[in-house]
């Protein structure tokens, strides 16, 4: 047996936009053990419920992560509305669906870019981010914010989108669809990318399920787990199928995300067709008394907000279990047995979002 050495990976590392730290135990070039350390971004924001009223806390919930910001606020208010028994207007549900799909598009494009960059594919990185600006422009035009939207509130949303703007948004998405196609073609058919990704970092279906993988990480291993199917917001009234790939390797996870973007565009289109007229918010009085586990599908997978209130303005507990947090055990298994040079690529295929994971 050759000698073992331990290599620290991160927290400040060129391929990582965010601080994640891994201790890689190596035997020659092979990784034999991985010990993750987190906590570089830990703020302890869940404890702020003691200081903020439940209506103000939406802003904190949104800032758990700047990439899935909209969906965090959506999940949080959804939980509060459920506890308080609010029937929020139909139109709001559709608007929330549209925005959450927009955030998925922007997140997936962001990921495709960063991922390409980690493989040294700079031009794809630039192109993905150029397309992403289109999505952000629409988000900004409709919500007022590029990455932190601040548009959700308990009992509805702050802004409505006019019918003309909705049509324009769909037209815009149709306009960039073929560019997206070109971009995803690179990921799905380019031979050097396939060479880097196929058969690397394989996660079996069994492991994915019991180790707690969610989102594209699970769907790349043949598990059809997609919380959107539970029909929260307006997803119950929309036709869509979760994208599932069966190989469980880096390529499969990458393909899931690439194909999901088209599902998102399709969902937005359906929403625009079906969206009813009506108010977008309602008056909310009182305070939540009860507990609920609110779930939603983020770009990275299932997120859970556990909310417990006791009839006071301040909640008793708000706990967030984010997709990256539960994707850490599968990541540890994925890395064992791989080569050192593949580590950055494998780490990025679970789309780690450390801001989320550590809160």
């Amino acid at each position, binding site marked *: 047996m050759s000698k073992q050495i331990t290599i620290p990976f991160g927290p400040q590392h060129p391929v990582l936009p965010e601080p994640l730290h891994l201790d890689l135990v190596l035997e020659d070039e092979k990784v034999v053990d991985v*010990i993750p*350390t*987190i*906590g570089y971004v*830990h703020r*302890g924001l*869940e*404890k702020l419920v003691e200081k903020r009223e439940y209506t103000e806390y939406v802003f904190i919930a949104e800032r758990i992560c700047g990439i899935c910001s909209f969906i965090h606020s959506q999940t949080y208010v*959804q939980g509060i509305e*459920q506890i308080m028994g609010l*029937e929020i207007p139909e139109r709001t549900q559709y608007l929330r669906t549209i925005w959450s799909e927009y955030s998925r598009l922007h997140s997936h494009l962001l990921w495709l870019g960063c991922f390409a960059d980690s493989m040294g594919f700079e031009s794809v990185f630039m192109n993905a981010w150029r397309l992403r600006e289109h999505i952000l422009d629409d988000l900004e035009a409709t919500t007022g914010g590029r990455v932190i939207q601040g548009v959700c509130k308990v009992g509805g949303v702050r802004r409505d989108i006019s019918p003309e703007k909705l049509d324009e948004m769909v037209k815009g998405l149709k306009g960039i669809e073929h560019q997206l196609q070109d971009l995803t073609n690179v990921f799905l058919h380019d031979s050097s990318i396939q060479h880097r990704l196929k058969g690397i970092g394989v996660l079996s279906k069994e492991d994915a*399920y*019991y*180790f*707690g993988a969610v989102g594209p990480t699970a769907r790349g291993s043949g598990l059809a787990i997609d*919380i959107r*199917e*539970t029909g*929260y917001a307006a997803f119950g009234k929309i036709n869509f199928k979760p994208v599932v790939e069966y190989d469980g390797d880096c390529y499969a996870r990458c393909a899931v995300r690439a194909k999901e973007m088209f599902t998102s565009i399709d969902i937005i289109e359906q929403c625009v067709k079906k969206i009813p007229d009506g108010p977008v918010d309602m008056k909310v009085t009182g305070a939540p008394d009860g*507990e*609920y*586990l*609110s779930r939603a599908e983020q770009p990275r997978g*299932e997120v*859970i907000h*556990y909310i*417990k209130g006791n009839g006071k303005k301040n909640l*008793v*507990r708000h*706990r967030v*279990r984010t997709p990256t*947090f*539960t994707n*850490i*055990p*599968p990541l540890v*298994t994925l890395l064992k047995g791989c080569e050192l040079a593949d580590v950055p690529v494998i780490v990025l295929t679970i789309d780690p979002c450390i801001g989320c994971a*550590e809160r």
Partner: protein
Amino acid sequence: MMEPQTITPISVGDVVRKVEQAKKDGNRLVQIGCTKIEDNFEILYVFDKDYKLTNYRVTVKQTDEIPSISGVYFGAFVYENEIHDLYGIHVKGINIDFKGTFYKTVVKHPFSVTITKEDDACQNK
């Protein structure tokens, strides 16, 4: 409106048996979370199968020890280390035990105590 949820209270001794049963039934582990209610700590185990949640709750004191379920679900170690670091509840037999270094916090077991942070001078400038 989403489906209502129920939470079944169980005792500390039952945890491992119930979790094993859940795994046999084909559930995946969704999360383990902790809540402090006055002097008690409620630990919530959540499982999911076909989008149906099964929830178990145990109520313990901080001095109590809870058994680890990482032998059943490998991925449980992240939650158990978290409970240990943030609440100070001892979890026995975690497969990857960070021994309190998972989260590095200024205050030890921040969620088990009341923290008052005086306003910073720079904020009032």
